[in-house]
Structure formats: C-alpha cells, structure tokens
C-alpha cells in the first residue's frame, strides 16, 4: 500500500514536470484552454447552482433550529452562515462535487483517448501530450473554480436568507445585521486560496488517472472512480492543512 502510494507520487511528480514545456503552438493551447473553461465552468453551472442553494438553505434552517431556544441573538444565524459558507462550505462542498462531475469526466476523456490510441497518434506527430492534454485543463480549473466557488458562496448565502425568511426563522433585518457584523475580508481570501488548491487537485489528479489508464473498459471505469476518490481525499486533507495554516 505504502509502496504503491510512493510509486504513484513519484510518477505523478515526473509526469508533472513534463507538463511544463514550451507549447508547440501557443494558439492551439489557448483554443484548448478556452474549450476546457467552457466545459469546466459553464458545464458545471447547473450542479453548482443546485448544490449551493441547498447548502445555504440547510445551514440556515439547522442554525435556526440549534440557536432557536438559546439566548444567542438571532442575527448570529446570518453571521455564522456567512462565514461557514465562505470559509468552508462553498469551496469544499463545491469542489467535492466538481471532483465528481469534472474529475470523472477528465479521467474518462483522457483515458478514452489513451485506449483509442489518440494519445499515441499525437505522440507520433510530435505533440507533447502531457502538456497539450493536461495543461489547458489545469489552467481552466485554476481560472474557473474560484469563479464557481464565489458564485456558490453568493447563492448559498442568498438561499439561506430566502429560506429563513420564508420559513419565518428570523427577520430580514436580523439576517442583514448578521451578514454585516464582524466581516473580515481575510475569510474571502481563504476561500479563494482553497478554491485554487482544490481546482488544481481535481484537474491534475483526474488527468493523471486518465493518462495512465490500463487497457479495457473496467480499467477505464476504475480510473474514473480513482480520480474522484483520490481527488476527494486530497481535497479534504488539504482543507485541514489550509485551515490549520491560515486560521490556526
């Protein structure tokens, strides 16, 4: 198990090095990056929208329930919800979902290309396939993930507000008071850092699993599963590390 982990880590690092080479044609990389931005960003809007709306709603309802019978002022719900969503819920939950949706897609796409000899065809032409197939995905992930996370945070807070008002858990004034109290821009900075790290993790780890897929449909399915599982584990581990380093 440990030997296997060391093997994968070593191969991943060597593989990463080959990504960073001069593009054969800058325009082709640019075109591919735009395509990936569309895939990762626009293609994930729906799922991010659904997930973030429910996150905000559930957090608002549960906070109201937990603080309801206490002496804690009601505006605290808005304050806690805002920081919970910004610091952890929006980046972490959104990226766990993206790792499932985008990560499995990346692993299947690159793995399929490997199995159908598309990667060999590009290699024979002289294309640096690690760079051409992976770098645009990582760049797109680094650009689009923070945008999706910001959107998720906004929608999460908004949906929490709406659900709580509709459900009569607190008033609009109480919620707005909470939202504007103890605001610290540093929390948004943490959110952006998290989304950048997670975006890098799920794109590169998924591409790695697709790139080294073994022949056969079972192996392709396993590559997709591994991409999601390892991305999720690494996201959670780095969540803890970032939390410790930035807020500890």
């Amino acid at each position, binding site marked *: 198990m440990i030997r296997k982990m060391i093997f994968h880590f070593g191969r991943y690092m060597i593989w990463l090095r080959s990504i960073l080479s001069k593009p054969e*044609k800058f325009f*082709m990389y640019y075109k591919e990056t735009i395509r990936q931005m569309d895939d990762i960003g626009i293609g994930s809007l729906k799922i991010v929208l659904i997930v973030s709306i429910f996150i905000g709603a559930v957090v608002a309802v549960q906070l109201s329930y937990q603080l309801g019978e206490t002496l804690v002022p009601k505006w605290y719900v808005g304050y806690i919800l805002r920081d919970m969503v910004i610091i952890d819920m929006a980046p972490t939950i959104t990226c766990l979902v993206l790792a499932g949706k985008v990560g499995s897609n990346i692993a299947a796409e690159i793995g399929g290309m490997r199995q159908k*000899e598309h990667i*060999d065809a590009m290699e024979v*032409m*002289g294309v640096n396939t690690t760079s051409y197939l992976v770098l645009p995905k990582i760049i797109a992930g680094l650009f689009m993930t923070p945008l999706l996370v910001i959107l998720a945070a906004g929608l999460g807070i908004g949906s929490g507000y709406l659900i709580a008002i509709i459900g009569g858990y607190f008033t609009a004034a109480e919620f707005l008071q909470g939202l504007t109290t103890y605001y610290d821009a540093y929390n948004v900075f943490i959110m952006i850092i998290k989304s950048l790290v997670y975006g890098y993790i799920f794109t590169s780890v998924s591409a790695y699993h697709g790139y080294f897929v073994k022949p056969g449909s079972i192996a392709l399915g396993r590559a997709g599963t591994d991409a999601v599982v390892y991305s999720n584990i690494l996201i959670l581990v780095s969540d803890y590390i970032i939390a410790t380093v930035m807020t500890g």
Partner: protein
Amino acid sequence: MIRAKKIFKSFGDLKILDDIDFTFERRKTNLIIGQSGAGKTVLLKILVGLLEPSSGEVWYDQTNCMSLNKKERRQLSMSVGMLFQGSALFDSMSVEENIRFPMDMFTNFTDGEKRARVDYCLNRVELNGVNDKYPSELSGGMQKRVGIARAIVLKPKYLFCDEPNSGLDPKTAIVIDDLIKDITIEEDMTTVINTHDMNSVMEIGDNILLLNKGKMEWTGHKDEILASQNQFLTDFIFASPFLKQLKDRAFQGI
C-alpha cells in the same frame, strides 16, 4: 530507409523481441508479418518511437534515433506519419479538423494553404466532400482513408501502418493496400506495415519480415513465398486448408 539494428525487447522476464536486424527500404511497402503475439506491434512501436528497445538501435536514414534528445525526436516526428489500427481519429473533431491538426500544431501555413492541403489529401484518398463529417459518421474503410490523409498531410518521409486492413472486407482492404502502395511511390516514402492479412502479403509485400516468437523467421519478397522451403512460412501463409489446396494444385499444374 529505416534500419532496425540488433533490437532486443523484453518486459520484465518476458522476452518479446530477440535480435531483430532488418532494413526497411525506401519506396517499398515493407511488411512485418507473424502470428498474434509474435512481437509485430512491439517492433512497430519501437520503430516509430513509442517504445524504447531494451537494446539495439533504430536508424532513420543517417540518423540514429537512440542518440536523439527529446526535442530532436519531436523534430524527427514531423517526418513521420502513422495509420493506426483503429484509425485513431479524434472523435470531437470533423474530418477536416482531424487532417488539419498536424498543420495547426506544427506549421505556419495560412488558412488557405491548409484548406488546399486538406483538399489535396482527401482527393488523394478519394474522399471528397466529407470535410464536415465526424469520424462516427464514416464507415471503417472511410475512417482508414481519413487516417491515411492525416498521416500524409505533412509530407512525411516515413509512413507506418498498424494493421491497416483489420475490420475491413477483402475488397476495401485491397483498395487500402493499393492506396498505401501508390502513395509510398508517389511521395517517395519508406513505408512499414504491420499486418496478418495474407491478401496484403501477396498483393503489396515488396520486402517482408516474418516474425516467429520474437525472432526473425524469414525475410524476402512476396514472389519468393511460393518457392520458399521454410515450413513455418508455408504453414503461416497457407494456414487454411483451402489455400493449401490451391497451392498444391498450382504446383501440380507446374
């Protein structure tokens, strides 16, 4: 000309290729034949640079490929074209985009020049008017032809074909064979074909290398096959009772 010099290849303890020493000649259709598992695909992948041999050298004319660094190898790749067994056309691209891809990646041709070259290549493989179709909309034979068009778009000096006839009916297979042979002569290329299609062997086998369990079993021209005393070659080429009967009758007639 491509020269394989004393090529050995093994995966762990499993020996795949053992002392392959052979010259693939220019303007000829050079065939690598042999049973499944004989090492044909591994040899082809070594020749094209997708695999490293355990020992030995591959020479493209005066260039020793083993002594090249990554950048020089990529440079050399521009003079190589390859047709894959499953055509390896990119699904998300149209026929035209597939053929343009090497030009988009490596040349500074204008859009008009690229379009003209695509049209020329499609015309050469007799597939006019399919520019906007996607690979999934084409038959297997048409996909192979698009694969050939993409392989020759940068006017390569060396063409490799991995099982160009697999999955094709005999008539279409002959069309593909003839096309490869004609292009080899027209474009002055060294063509290496990996096949186990006996029709291809008898049709376009200018220079044949027969592999048996990773070793060179027999080499020669298609015309030498009938007269050969090599039992393995005879058993391999005339594997079916029908072909064996035909051969025997032909000899009785003589």
